[in-house]
């Protein structure tokens, strides 16, 4: 019954006006007003069993809420239905609950358990919606529950639930700011999320909860930049604004040289002019000049991360969303080098076609921009021309922009345009135009007279407002050079008879007073007229009359002494105290009496001092200290929650803070290298001097740094894999195998016994050990892990070839594939590791495995060179049936700087992955460049798109300093180019890494005959066929080159063909086994037709692109 009493209490305060008291008994409803009967109706309907009645009731209640009527008295009846099965009823109940929970906290608690149940639902969308409603209920008691729910949701499998968690963070924060610290932890976690769905929401939460914790961004900076284009539009806006602020704290001002040089050149005249001595100069220079000298010595080099941001935001200028375009525009304005800011002009001008509200905001920002960078918008001058149908506020803003854009070359056009505006019917606009003309006249000396003449003509305008405004502007202009324009002053003096607008009259009087020496005859007469009408004038005019009188008294006391006395007497008894005060003050000042003392001597100086000409400034000047596009900028006042845009730092903070993470895709790895290169630059630059400017560094030529950072290991693995290729084709190369075996035997023989002894138990033990450690692994992984163990087992036992038959089968395959030199170190390594683990477990004397490994690497590399020769000759011999050798491209997984000495490269070895035919084998080469041993290299926390699977490589127990090891892992990419993300762990650190396959690696070769090929091709026509025409590069107009290039791009095999003008290739995708057929037909002059037939359209299109690129470059 507490329910009804609570509801009773509530009702008293909240029910709408004029409602009589009422009971809860529906039976007694008859005596009450119809409104309350209706509410009782609603209650009855809500209590009924029929969903349709409930729905109807809820619809009526929601309609009441929407109209702003109070429906809080229905709370208990509604809350009962929170667990209703009907989804629409449920949704409407949620709407109601969120609206009134704050008012009825106790009752709202009844619904919480429903949501808590929802949080555990297997359906991600239900989990998300439960969290959404739960977090929207603004009841303080449930803060701990919300906190828990958010924390759980933040590590949910589903990105959508994580997104909802990010949304819930600001809600909880506004409910209870005490939770800030805990929430920041959640934000930090979510910021590391790699999905586009979450990125926007979590940055929004970051901005609301802890915008000052800029340090949280460091490690996610590059990821955010790279994800940006795929984030939804609203998220883009928030991220871009945040990154602008971030960039301002972390990078150097790209325009620093320019601005300093400008200032410096100004200073040069002062400093260099006076003293020639260089040394003395050095001492005397101000701080800025010193900085300039510094800048000269060390040219500005843009941080590659700064460049990354600029590059990745630029395409968003083409967004349909005005807010996104504006966000990018402000980012460029605040962060880009001067030469690059121009790109935003076009996009902003485009927005001017949009709704008038959008125009209003954009024009405000354009106005600010035009003050600082006029040139940017000059080509678009005509886009700012005003139409008579524009709303006044838009007209005034356009006028502002036009005025800012005016310069010597375009002023005549602009003035002609202004001339038409002056005739407009919109008088406010005309007034603004006159002001604009005045500003043009002050800014551009050449047209001052033209403008002045034009304005004087306006003095005869019939509209008083126009005349008044002209007078005010003319007054300002005349102040600049009064001596030339006494006739204008005379003309204006005549106007005092007609013009009535007080401001204009006051302006004229001030002008005459100020320049009374230029019009000595007229001035006293004007004063005489004014004295006559003094009592009827407005206050500001009266003040100016007094002013005029005083000035005339000082210059021409003979004629005006009496008049002045008269005016002062009138003023003495004026109603306005300001005027009385002024009169008293002036009388004391100008009329010498005994008491007046020293001041009156200086009266003339006081009144007739040379006054500086007013500067007609744009109201938008200096508004750019607010972040453009922000509400604060628009209002020109700091809005609540506005984050100040910081000034550029004097020296760049350490850029390596962003270094932790490995870039998303392979393209970035080159960027990574580049930044490496440039990070080092400043250190050397002092002695060596910089060579290329930033821009050149940005172009993709970083081969030098690549090879440097690769430290030679890349080459080795590259050539190694070349030989693999050939081996695959030539199954019959017994000698090689022999060599292999010999080689292995030598090294393995020592461990043989141990391995044999404890093979089975060891693997299980190992597994256990791993299980304990890797708590985070996905369920399926435990399985694959054991697989892996087996695999490594079989590998290690390869050399002892006489074993069970079934295994021998596997091994045979392996020998064809796996017995490649580069992978050997792994095997060795693995054995070494096993050795170690065995030793650990069984207390054996430790065998110095490190000593063995290097020997092996050495041997294998020498072997590689041997094999290379073989493979090449081989490919020449039988090019028709096998894929010829090609250099396998290796990609960087972890750079040695990011990896703190550990560098990892990977390549797609194109060997079938032995344990799972649906996986692509990825061969990784670990190199320890640090000075200490790296222990227990393994992978953890694999994050994959649904359907993808990974088989981990076996843990590498130890990698001594300066050594390398390789390992093979398998990834089932599900025939997509989605990246596989995981953590690479050492005993001390974890690195986030990701592997993204080029599409060509998602397939494996199949052997087809010509007829089979044609038959299959015939079945893959129409939509499954993609044809491109291209012109071959001169260098690859022969068959061999084509075959080489195609097979390098994609893992396909050649299909024999009768014609030498045609090359055919075939393969199957690794996961689904869909056929991929490629035909290259060459014609004259390098004209070529490329055809790809593939059931999977996406793969087909991507493959066409890749092959096209390979063939044309």
């Amino acid at each position, binding site marked *: 019954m507490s329910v009804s009493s609570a509801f009773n209490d509530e009702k008293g305060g909240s029910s709408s006006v004029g409602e009589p008291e009422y009971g809860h008994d529906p039976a007694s409803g008859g005596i009450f007003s119809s409104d309350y009967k209706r509410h009782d109706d609603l209650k009855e309907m809500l209590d009924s069993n029929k969903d349709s009645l409930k729905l109807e009731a809820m619809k009526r209640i929601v309609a009441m809420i929407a109209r702003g009527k109070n429906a809080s008295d229905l709370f208990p009846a509604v809350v009962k239905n929170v667990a209703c099965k009907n989804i629409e009823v449920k949704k*409407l109940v949620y709407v109601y609950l969120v609206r009134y929970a704050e008012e009825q906290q106790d009752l709202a608690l009844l619904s919480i358990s429903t949501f808590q149940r929802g949080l555990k639902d297997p359906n991600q969308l239900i989990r998300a919606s439960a969290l959404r409603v739960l977090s929207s209920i603004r009841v303080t008691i449930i803060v701990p529950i919300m906190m828990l729910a958010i924390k759980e949701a933040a590590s949910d499998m589903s990105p959508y639930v994580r997104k909802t968690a990010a949304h819930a963070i600001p809600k909880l924060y506004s409910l209870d700011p005490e939770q800030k610290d805990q929430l920041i932890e959640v934000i930090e976690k979510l910021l590391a999320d790699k999905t586009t769905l979450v990125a926007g929401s979590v940055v929004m939460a970051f901005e609301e909860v802890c915008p000052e914790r800029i340090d949280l961004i460091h490690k996610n900076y590059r990821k955010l930049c790279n994800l940006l284009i795929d984030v939804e539009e609203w998220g883009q806006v928030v991220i871009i604004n945040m990154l602008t602020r971030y960039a301002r704290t972390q990078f150097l001002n790209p325009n620093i040289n320019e601005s300093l040089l400008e200032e410096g050149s100004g200073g040069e005249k002062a400093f260099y002019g006076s003293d020639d001595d260089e040394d003395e100069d050095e001492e005397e220079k101000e701080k800025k000049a010193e900085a300039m000298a510094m800048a000269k010595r060390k040219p500005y080099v843009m941080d590659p991360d700064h460049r990354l941001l600029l590059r990745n935001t630029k395409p968003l200028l083409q967004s349909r969303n005005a807010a996104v375009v504006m966000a990018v525009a402000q980012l460029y304005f605040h962060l880009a080098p001067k030469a690059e800011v121009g790109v935003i002009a076009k996009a902003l001008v485009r927005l001017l076609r949009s709704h008038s*509200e959008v125009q209003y905001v954009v024009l405000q920002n354009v106005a600010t921009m035009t003050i600082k960078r006029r040139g940017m918008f000059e080509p678009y001058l005509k886009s700012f021309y005003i139409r008579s*149908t524009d709303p006044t506020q838009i007209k005034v803003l356009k006028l502002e922009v036009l005025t800012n854009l005016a310069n010597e070359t375009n002023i005549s056009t602009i003035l002609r345009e202004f001339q038409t505006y002056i005739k407009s019917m919109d008088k406010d606009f005309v007034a603004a135009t006159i002001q604009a003309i005045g500003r043009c006249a002050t800014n551009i000396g050449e047209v001052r007279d033209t403008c002045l003449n034009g304005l004087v003509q306006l003095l005869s305008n019939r509209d008083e407002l126009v005349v008044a405004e002209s007078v005010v502007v003319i007054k300002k202009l005349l102040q600049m050079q009064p001596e030339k324009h006494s006739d204008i002053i005379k003309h204006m003096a005549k106007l005092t008879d007609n013009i009535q607008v007080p401001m204009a009259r006051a302006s004229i009087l001030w002008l005459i007073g100020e320049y009374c020496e230029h019009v000595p005859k007229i001035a006293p007469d004007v004063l005489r007229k004014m004295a006559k009408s003094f009592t009827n004038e407005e206050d500001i005019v009266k003040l100016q009359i007094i002013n005029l009188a005083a000035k005339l008294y000082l210059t021409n006391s003979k004629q005006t002494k009496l008049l002045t006395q008269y005016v002062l007497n009138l003023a003495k008894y004026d109603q306005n105290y300001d005027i009385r005060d002024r009169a008293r003050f002036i009388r004391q000042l100008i009329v010498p009496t005994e008491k007046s003392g020293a001041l009156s001597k200086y009266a003339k100086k006081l009144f007739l001092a040379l006054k500086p000409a007013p500067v007609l400034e744009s109201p938008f000047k200096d508004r750019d200290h607010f972040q453009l596009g922000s509400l604060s900028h628009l209002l020109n006042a700091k809005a609540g929650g506005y984050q100040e845009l910081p000034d550029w730092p004097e020296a760049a903070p350490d850029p390596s803070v962003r270094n932790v993470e490995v870039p998303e895709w392979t393209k970035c790895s080159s960027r990574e290298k580049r930044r490496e290169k440039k990070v080092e630059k400043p250190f050397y630059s002092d002695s060596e001097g910089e060579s290329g400017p930033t821009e050149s560094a940005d172009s993709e030529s970083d081969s030098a740094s690549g090879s440097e950072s690769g430290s030679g290991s890349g080459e080795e693995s590259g050539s190694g894999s070349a030989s693999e290729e050939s081996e695959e084709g030539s199954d019959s190369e017994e000698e090689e195998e022999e060599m292999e075996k010999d080689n292995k035997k030598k090294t393995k023989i020592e461990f043989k016994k141990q391995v044999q002894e404890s093979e089975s138990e060891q693997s299980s033990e190992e597994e256990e050990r791993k299980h304990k450690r890797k708590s985070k692994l996905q369920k399926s992984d435990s399985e694959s892990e054991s697989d892996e163990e087996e695999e490594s087992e079989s590998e290690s036992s390869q050399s002892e070839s006489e074993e069970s038959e079934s295994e021998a089968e596997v091994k045979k395959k392996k020998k064809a594939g796996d017995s490649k030199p580069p992978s050997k170190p792994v095997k060795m390594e693995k054995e070494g590791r096993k050795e170690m683990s065995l030793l650990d477990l069984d207390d054996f004397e430790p065998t110095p495995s490190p000593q063995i490994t290097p020997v092996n690497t050495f041997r294998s590399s020498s072997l590689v060179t041997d094999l290379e020769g073989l493979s090449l000759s081989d490919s020449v011999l039988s090019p028709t049936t096998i894929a010829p050798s090609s250099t396998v491209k290796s990609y960087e997984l972890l750079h040695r700087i990011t990896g703190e000495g550990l560098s990892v490269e990977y390549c797609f070895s194109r060997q079938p992955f032995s344990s799972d035919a649906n996986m692509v084998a990825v061969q990784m080469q670990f190199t320890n460049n640090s000075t200490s041993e790296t222990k227990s290299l393994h992978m953890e926390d694999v994050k994959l798109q649904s359907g993808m699977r990974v088989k981990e490589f076996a843990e590498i127990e130890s990698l001594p300093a300066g050594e390398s090891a390789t390992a093979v892992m398998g990834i089932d990419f599900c025939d997509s180019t989605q990246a596989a993300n995981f953590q690479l762990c050492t005993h001390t650190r974890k690195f986030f890494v990701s592997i993204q396959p080029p599409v060509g690696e998602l397939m494996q070769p199949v052997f087809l005959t010509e007829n089979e090929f044609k038959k299959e091709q015939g079945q893959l026509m129409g939509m499954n066929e993609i044809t491109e025409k291209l012109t071959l590069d001169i260098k690859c107009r022969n068959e061999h080159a084509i075959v080489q290039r195609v097979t390098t791009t994609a893992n396909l095999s050649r299909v024999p063909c009768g014609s030498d003008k045609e090359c055919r290739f075939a393969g199957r995708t690794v996961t689904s086994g869909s056929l991929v057929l490629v035909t290259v037909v060459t014609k004259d002059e390098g004209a070529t037709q490329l055809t790809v037939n593939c059931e999977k359209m996406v793969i087909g299109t991507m493959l066409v692109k890749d092959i096209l690129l390979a063939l044309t470059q």
Partner: protein
Amino acid sequence: MIHSLFLINQSGDIFLEKHWKSVIGRSVCDYFFEAKEKAVDPENVAPVLQTPHHYLISILRGKLFFLSVIQTEVPPLFVIEFLHRVADTFQDYFGDCSEGVIKDNLVTVYELLEEMLDNGFPLATESNVLKEMIRPPTILRSVVNTLTGGSNVGDTLPTGQLSNIPWRRAGVKYTNNEAYFDVIEEIDAILDKSGTTVCAEIQGVIEACVRLTGMPDLTLSFMNPRLLDDVSFHPCVRFKRWESERVLSFIPPDGNFTLMTYHVSSQNLVAIPVYVKQNISFFETGPCGRLDITIGPKQTMGKTVEGLMVTIHMPKAVLSANLTATQGNYSYDLATKVLVWDIGKLNPQKLPNLRGSLSMQAGVPRPEENPSLNIELKIQQLAISGLKVSRLDMYGEKYKPFKGVKYVTKAGKFQVRT
């Protein structure tokens, strides 16, 4: 971010309110009404207003004000763009965005608003995602719903939000697969008294109506893409391919959408389809004026100009107009002082002419300026910039869709100064 939303009609009644955070009283709108009082025209109300505790950001769409209440710093364009998106969604759902329609569908509107924002931050603004959650009302469905007790709320949960292409719903099926593209170009121009062009540019938009089964991947290419000076795209368009190949490659949303907008700048010569000979004068003596307007074809590329209409905002002093039109009808609205001359099709043999006298209020000085003429027109089957779609290819699905492209040229902000 966005705290509350109020929908206000022309006469100043709040007929819908929605709060995404704590409730804010209606009295906050008083500041807005005050500003509205001051402004002569509703469109002259400043879109951003500052009040002691809140900021009000409003838009005007079809005689309705969408007024949002903001408490902290947020990019104003963010809010404005969102409000327009809300209005677009209403338009899309109900075919109209007027007070009556919104009141009729109050619950649907409320549900939509609930889904579009979460805690003031936009959540689902894609029409396709929303339609999966809340079905647009149709007559048939409302009949069925009353009979069966069904609802407008989708019983399947929206999966669109989860996918990488949120703008397209999954499992679309049509018996007739069709894709239509309308290339609509608007000429923005200002002509001066003598008929010379002060400025002119072309704003183009490609509206698409795509009803295709499954997940089609479309590629639209142009004969002359270099023509386009500045473009903006629907998020579905792959920007990289536009950069490299100048083709539009996209997986389309289902139904109607704006594929791209473009701009052909004034640097290129813009053809002006009509010329206007006009003579409007107000006599110094006597309360009357004279008006004489003739319109003729100029550069029409051999097509007929249709839907020709001239609108003139007369000075306040003009009381009535006594005119004769050789073609079409004219009307003069005394209250708004707007003269509309609806001509229709332009016949090159017999040029339409409107002439007669204007009577003026006595005792009021002669208007300073002659009113400018706003011209509307339409030319079918012509893109005035010369843009041409060369082909549309579809990948990803096996059927043959029906394809069509239509070109229309219209006058945008086309003004003749007199």
